[in-house]
C-alpha cells in the first residue's frame, strides 16, 4: 500500500478525456516521476490530487484517507504541498514574508486569529523561514519583493515555501522549467538532500530527463490521460511503449 493510491480516476473536459482510468501508487519515501508528452494530463492529475479539480469517477487515497471532496487547504493540512507549473507565490510580499506564511500555516493550522502580536516577535517562525531561505540560497534576497525575482528564483522560492511545511508528499510540476543549468543542478542537489534528511515522498513531473533520471526511483509514463508503463529508471530507458509515446520528443 503506497502513501498515495489513485484508483480508476477519470476526468473529462467536454469531449476531451484528460484522464482515463488512471491508477497510480506512490510508495512512501520514494521519488516518483510522472513523464509524458505535452497535454498528457500530468498537471490535471496533480489538480485532482490537491483538490483543484474533482474527478468524474475514481478514488484518491492519501495516508489512508480520501482526499476527494476536500478543500485545497484541508488537503494541504493533511500533508500535501504542491509546486505549480507557473509559480504561485505572493508577488506583492517580500521573499521573507512568502516563506513565513507557510510556517504560520504549519504552526497554527488553517485559521488562527492573532491580530495583536507583531510578526517581528515571531522568533520561531522567522528562524524557520531564514533556515529554508539559506537552504535554497536565497537568504540575501530576503527583503526583495517576490515579483522582482527572476523566473528561476520564483520557482526556488515556491519550492522553499512548500519544503518549509515539511509535507509528507511534495508534488512538483516541472520544478526546473525555465531555470539555468546551474540552478537546475542546485535544485537536484537540494531535492536529494531533502530526501535524505527527511521522510518525504515526492511526485515530480518533468520534461528534463536529466532531472528525472537523477532523482526518480519509479517512473510512470502518461500519454493521452492514461498511464502506459510504470517502471524503474533503468527499465524505462529504451522501453518500446515509451519510445512510441514520445516519438522523438525527448531523448529517453
Amino acid at each position, binding site marked *: 500500500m503506497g502513501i498515495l493510491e489513485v484508483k480508476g480516476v477519470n476526468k473529462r473536459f467536454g469531449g476531451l478525456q484528460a484522464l482515463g482510468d488512471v491508477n497510480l501508487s506512490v510508495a512512501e519515501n520514494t521519488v516518483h516521476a510522472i513523464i509524458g508528452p505535452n497535454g498528457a494530463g500530468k498537471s490535471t492529475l496533480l489538480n485532482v490530487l490537491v483538490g483543484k479539480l474533482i474527478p468524474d469517477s475514481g478514488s484518491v487515497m492519501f495516508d489512508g484517507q480520501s482526499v476527494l471532496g476536500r478543500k485545497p487547504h484541508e488537503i494541504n493540512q493533511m500533508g500535501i*504541498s504542491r509546486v505549480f507549473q507557473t509559480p504561485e507565490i505572493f*508577488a506583492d*510580499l517580500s521573499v*521573507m*514574508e512568502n516563506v513565513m*506564511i507557510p510556517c504560520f500555516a504549519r504552526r497554527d493550522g488553517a485559521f488562527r486569529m492573532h*491580530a495583536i502580536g507583531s*510578526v517581528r516577535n515571531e522568533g520561531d517562525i522567522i528562524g524557520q523561514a531564514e533556515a529554508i531561505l539559506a537552504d535554497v540560497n536565497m537568504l540575501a534576497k530576503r527583503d526583495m519583493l517576490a515579483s522582482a525575482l527572476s523566473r528561476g528564483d520564483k520557482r526556488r522560492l515556491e519550492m522553499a515555501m512548500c519544503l518549509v*511545511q515539511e509535507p509528507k508528499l511534495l508534488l512538483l510540476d516541472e520544478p526546473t522549467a525555465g531555470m539555468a543549468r546551474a540552478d537546475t543542478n542546485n535544485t537536484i542537489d537540494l531535492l536529494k538532500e531533502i530526501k535524505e534528511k527527511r521522510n518525504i515522498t515526492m511526485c515530480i513531473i518533468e520534461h528534463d530527463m536529466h532531472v528525472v533520471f537523477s532523482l526518480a526511483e519509479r517512473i510512470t509514463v502518461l500519454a493521452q490521460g492514461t498511464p502506459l508503463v510504470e517502471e524503474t529508471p533503468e527499465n524505462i530507458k529504451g522501453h518500446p511503449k515509451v519510445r512510441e509515446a514520445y516519438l522523438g520528443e525527448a531523448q529517453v
Partner: protein
Amino acid sequence: MLGLNSRDFKLLMIVIFMTLAAPILLNPFPVDSALGESFNAGYPALMQRFVIFGLLAVGFNILFGLTGYLSFGHAAFLGVGSYAAVWMFKLLSYNIVPAMLASVIVAALFAVVIGYVCLRRSGIYFSILTLAFAQMSYALAYSVLSPITNGETGLQVYSDDPQVLMRAGDPIVPHLFGLEMNSSVTWNVGGWQFVFQNGYYLSAICMIIGFYISIRIFRSPFGLMLRAIKSNQTRMSYTGMNTKPYMLAAFVISGMYAGVAGGLMSAMDPLTGAERMFWTASGEIVVMAILGGVGTLIGPVLGAGIIKYLENIISKINSDILHNWFAFMPDWMDNLLVNILYPFVGKGWHLTLGVLFMVVVIFLPGGLVQGGQKLGALFSRKSKSSNSDATTAGTANTNTPAE
C-alpha cells in the same frame, strides 16, 4: 514602545498630537478676520466629523487596504451603529457607554451576516453584493422597518421614552457619566478663540485607539495573512490557509469600526436617519481611503480630513467672499478671478474634490501619502545628497506597508 516599532510609534505620536491639539492647530486665524471666517476649521462640529470619519476610514482600510476587497456598502454599518446608540438613549439613558457598546455589537452582528453572504464572491461581485445589501438596508429603514427607525422623521429621543436607567438630575443630552458631550471650554487669546469640546475629545480618543489597533493589526500575523490573500488567494489555499474566516474576520472588524463611528455620531447628536446608509455615503468612504492612500496607515485619516475640510470649508465660500479677497485688484481682474474660481467653491466643492481625486488617482496611485513620500524623498535627496544613510521613501523596506 506600546508594541510598536519606532517608525510606527512616531506616527502614532504625531496623530495623537495633531488630534489633541486640533482645536488650536485648525484655528490659525483670528475669529473676526476674513481668513478666519473662511478657513478656520477648529469648531467642534467639524472637528468631530474629522475624527469620526477618520475612524470610519481607518476601519474601512483594514478591509480594503489589506485584503483588496472593496466594500461599497460600508455606510450600512455606520447606520446601524447610529440606530443602536439612539435606541440605547431611548431605552436606558443618555449615558453613552451602553450606547457605544450596543453600536459595536449590533454592527458586528450585522457584519457577520452580510459578510458571510457577500464573501462568497470576490472582486466586482463582492462590491455589488455589499452595495445591494446597504441599499436594501436603506430602503427597509425607510419603509417596513419604520417602527424601529422612525422612517423619514429619523430616530430621536422623546420625553415619553422609557429611559429606565435615567435618574433625576441626569443630563438630558448624551453624556459620559455626567460629562456632557456638547459642553465645551472656550479659550480666548487676543483675537483668537479656541473651543475645547468634550464630544470632540471623546471622538478623538476613540479615533486614536482605533488608529493604534489598526497599526497593531497591520503588523500582526493576521495582517500578514490578509495581505497574502490580497496578493494570491490561490497560493493561500494551497498553503493550507482557510481564507474564508480570515476574510470574514477582517470584514467584521471593519464593520465594527463603522459601528463605533455611527455610535459616536449619535453621541454627538442623538438623532439619526436612514440617509446615513445611502450609497453616496458608502462611496464617500471609498473616496477617502483612495484619496489618502489605500493600504497605508495614515492615508485614510488624511483622506477623511481633506474631504470633510472641502465639504465644510470650501462649500461655505460664496462669490461675496471671493470678491472680498480680490478687492484690492482692478475690477476686471477681480471679476475674472472670481469667475474662474466660482465653479470650484460653494456648491461646486464637489468639482474641486473631483479634480483633486482625478489628479491623485492618475499621478499618485498610492494616494496623498505617496505624494508626501515623494516630496520627502526629494527634499532629503537635496539636503543630504552626500549622506548615504538617508532613509528616503524610495528605499523604505518592502516588508512592511508604508506609513
